[in-house]
C-alpha cells in the first residue's frame, strides 16, 4: 500500500519540504478493501434490524390482525429499512472519499467526516503508545485499526480504522520509532 513513508533521516527538512511539496499530495487514502468491509458490517447491522422489525411486526399481525394504521406502519418501516440498505451500500464509498491521513515529521494527521468534518493531528512527541487491533471480519479483509494514545483529555485516543493490516503495523512501528524525546507528563 504505502511505499514512500517519511523516515527518520528527513526529520530536519520540515521547513524546506513543506514549501516544495504540496501538502495535499502527502495525504493517503485508506485501503480500498475497507469499503467492502464497511458495506458488509453495515449490511449485517441492517439485516439484524430487519430481522427485529420483521419479528415484531409479524407478532403484532398474528395477535391483532391488520388495519390501515398497521399497513402504513409496515410501509414506513420497510421504506426506512430500504433506505438503510441503500446507505449501507452507498455510504462507505462516500465516506472513503472524505477520509485521508498523512504521517510526516510533525506527526499523524487524519481528516474525516462527510457532513461534520473533523481533522485531528497528533504530534509524534506526544504519542504515549500505539496499538493495532483487528476484528474477525477485519481479518478476513486483511484490515486493521490503528489506535494512538496520548496524554490528552478529550482526544486521549485517536483511532484510524480501515487501514490494511500491514500498513497499520508499519505505521505503528514508524510512530513508535519516531516518538522522540521525553514524554513524561
Amino acid at each position, binding site marked *: 500500500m504505502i511505499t514512500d513513508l517519511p523516515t527518520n533521516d528527513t526529520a530536519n527538512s*520540515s521547513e524546506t519540504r513543506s514549501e516544495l511539496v504540496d501538502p495535499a499530495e502527502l495525504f493517503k487514502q485508506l485501503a480500498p478493501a475497507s469499503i467492502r468491509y464497511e458495506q458488509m458490517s453495515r449490511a449485517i447491522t441492517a439485516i439484524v434490524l430487519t430481522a427485529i422489525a420483521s419479528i415484531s411486526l409479524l407478532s403484532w399481525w398474528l395477535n391483532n390482525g391488520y388495519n390501515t394504521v398497521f399497513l402504513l406502519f409496515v410501509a414506513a418501516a420497510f421504506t426506512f429499512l430500504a433506505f438503510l440498505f441503500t446507505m449501507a451500500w452507498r455510504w462507505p464509498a462516500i465516506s472513503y472519499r472524505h477520509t485521508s491521513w498523512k504521517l510526516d515529521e510533525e506527526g499523524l494527521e487524519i481528516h474525516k467526516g462527510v457532513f461534520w468534518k473533523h481533522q485531528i493531528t497528533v504530534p509524534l512527541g*506526544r504519542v504515549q503508545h500505539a496499538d493495532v487491533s483487528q476484528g474477525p471480519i477485519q481479518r478476513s479483509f486483511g484490515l486493521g485499526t490503528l489506535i494512538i494514545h*496520548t496524554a*490528552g*483529555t*478529550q*482526544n486521549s485516543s485517536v483511532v484510524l480504522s480501515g487501514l490494511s493490516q500491514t500498513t497499520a503495523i508499519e505505521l505503528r512501528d514508524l510512530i513508535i520509532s519516531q516518538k522522540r524525546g521525553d514524554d513524561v507528563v
Partner: protein
Amino acid sequence: MSFEMEPSESNPQRSGEAEAEIGQNSNDPLDKNKLEADEPKMVPTAQMSFLHPTSLVFDFLAHVKTYILPVAIGLFYGATEGQGFLLIISALLVIPTLLHSIFGYFTLRYCISDDQLIVREGILNRNIRTVPLAKIQNIDSVQNPLHRLLKVAEVKIETASGTKPEAVLRVLSVDKMNSLRSAVFESPAHFAKDASTDLPTEEFPTVESKYSQPVAATSDSEDLLKIPLSWLFKAGLASNRGLVLVSISLGVFFQFTNDKFNLSVNRLEELIRSATGITLIPDTDLSPWLVFGLSLAAILIVLGLIRLLGVGWYVIRFYGYKLQRNGNDLRISCGLWTKVSASIPIQRIQFISIHRSLLMRWWGLAAIRIETAGGDSSQNENSTESISKRWFIPVIAEGHVTPIIQNLRPDLIWDETTLEFQTVSPRTTSRLVRLACLQTAIVFLIGLAVSLTWGWAPGLVLLPFLLIRAVKKGKSMQYARRDNEVIYRSGIFNRKTSITFFDKIQTLCIDQSPFDRRWGMATLCVDTAAAGPAGHRMQIAYLEEQFANTEFKQLRVSAAGREPVFG
C-alpha cells in the same frame, strides 16, 4: 516476595549503614548497586518506624466516616423505637473497621533508606512499596483541628503516575513529616531528576539554565503571594459558593424530612404561638404591596445570607493562604481549621486559566486555576489536589496577576494588555443573531400553542436578552498565538483567559459542522493533559475557515518542534 523479619544474614551491617544515611547520597556506586539488588531485605524491621500512635484513632475515623450516617440512623432508631437488633447490627458494623484499623497500624511501617521511601504493610499479603525519592513529586499534608491539637498530619506522597497518591501515611507527627519533606526535597536524588531527564539543551536554553542550579534554589524559598482577609471577604461575596452549600443542605434536609419532622415543626409553631401570642402566619388581610415588599425583603435577606455563607466558606478554607516558590516547586498552604499544604512542580503545569467573574472585575480581583498532569481532582472539591488545581489561587488582586503568572513558567513573558488578540470571524455576530431570532421564534410558537392570549409574552421578553448575548458572545471570544503559547479568552460575565504552551499540546483538531461550512467557519480545539479542573476548554469556535486552517498548520509544526519539557 518473601520478607524476613530478621535482618538478612548476608550483610547485616550494611542495612545499619543505610539507615544512617537517610537523606544523604551514598557516593560509592558499588555500594548502591549492592543495596538495590536486594533492597527489600536490607532494612530490618526494627529500624522501620511505625506511624504515630494516634493513627489508630484517625484511621478508624476516616473509615467510619464513609458509612457513619446509616449507622447513626440505625443507632438512633434502635434506641428510640426500642428495637434492640438494630442497635446490635449497627454496633457490629463498626467492629470490622476497628479491627482493620488496629491491624493496619501494627503492620504498617515505613522508612527512608538509600534514596528510597519504603512503605511496608500487611502480614498475610505483604506489600512492600519502594518509591525512589527522585520520583516523588508532591508531599501533601492535611491537618484538621484534631490533627493540629495532637501535632500530627495526614501525609500523601504523590508521583507523576496515576490518579491516586502513591502512598498515604495517616498520620505522622509534624516533626516526622518535616524531616520526611526535607529528606525528599533536599536529597541530592531529588535534583538528580532534572539532570536525568533528557532535556533538549540547545532548544530550550532559558529553562535549562534556570533549572540547572537547584542547590542555590532550595535554600531560598521566596514568598510569592499571601492572601489578606479582605480579598477573601470580597471573593466570598462574589462567589456562588453559598448557594452550593445551601443546595447541599436542602438536599440533606429533604432527605430526612418525614411526617414526624413536620409534626414537630407544627408543634414548635404552636408552642411559639401559645408562648408569645404572635401568629407566624397572619390571618388578617394585608395590602398586596406590603406583602410584595415584605417578600422582596425576605428574598434579599436570604440572598445576603447565602453570600455570607460564601464568605464563611472562603475564609475557613483559605485563611492564611501562602504561595511560596522553593526552587522548582510551588508550595501552597492555607486553611483556618483544616490546614492543607501542597506542592506543585513548575514543570508539571499544563494549563493556566485566569477567571474573572463580573463582581470580581468590579472589585479588581481575579482567580487563577492551573492544571497539572496526574491526579484527578475534578470530582472532589475538598481534597488537597483541588487546592493545587481548581483553587490554585482562589483570589488575587489584578495587580498581582502578572508577576504570579510569570513565575508559573520560566520562559513566559506575560503582559495581558499588550497581547495582540485575534477576534473570531466578523460574521459571527450575524450568525449568532440569526440563531437568537430562531430560538425566539421557537419560544414564540410554543407559547402561542400553549395560550393564544398571553403566549407571545415569553418570546418577546426573551428576544432582547438573546440578542444582547449574541452580540456580546461574538466579541468576547479572542485568540492569540505567540512564540511559545496559545492564549484563548472567552466569556461574557465570567471572563476566562487561558494559556497553554506548545510543548503541552497533546492533540489539535478542527471541527466543521454543515452550518460552519455554510458560514465559512471552523472550530479549533487544543487538547492538553488533565484538561478539566480549570473549567475552560480551548475550543475556539467561529474562526474564519482559512484562518483556522493556517493556525492548525502552524500549531502543528510548533507543537511537534517543541519537545515536552518536564521533570
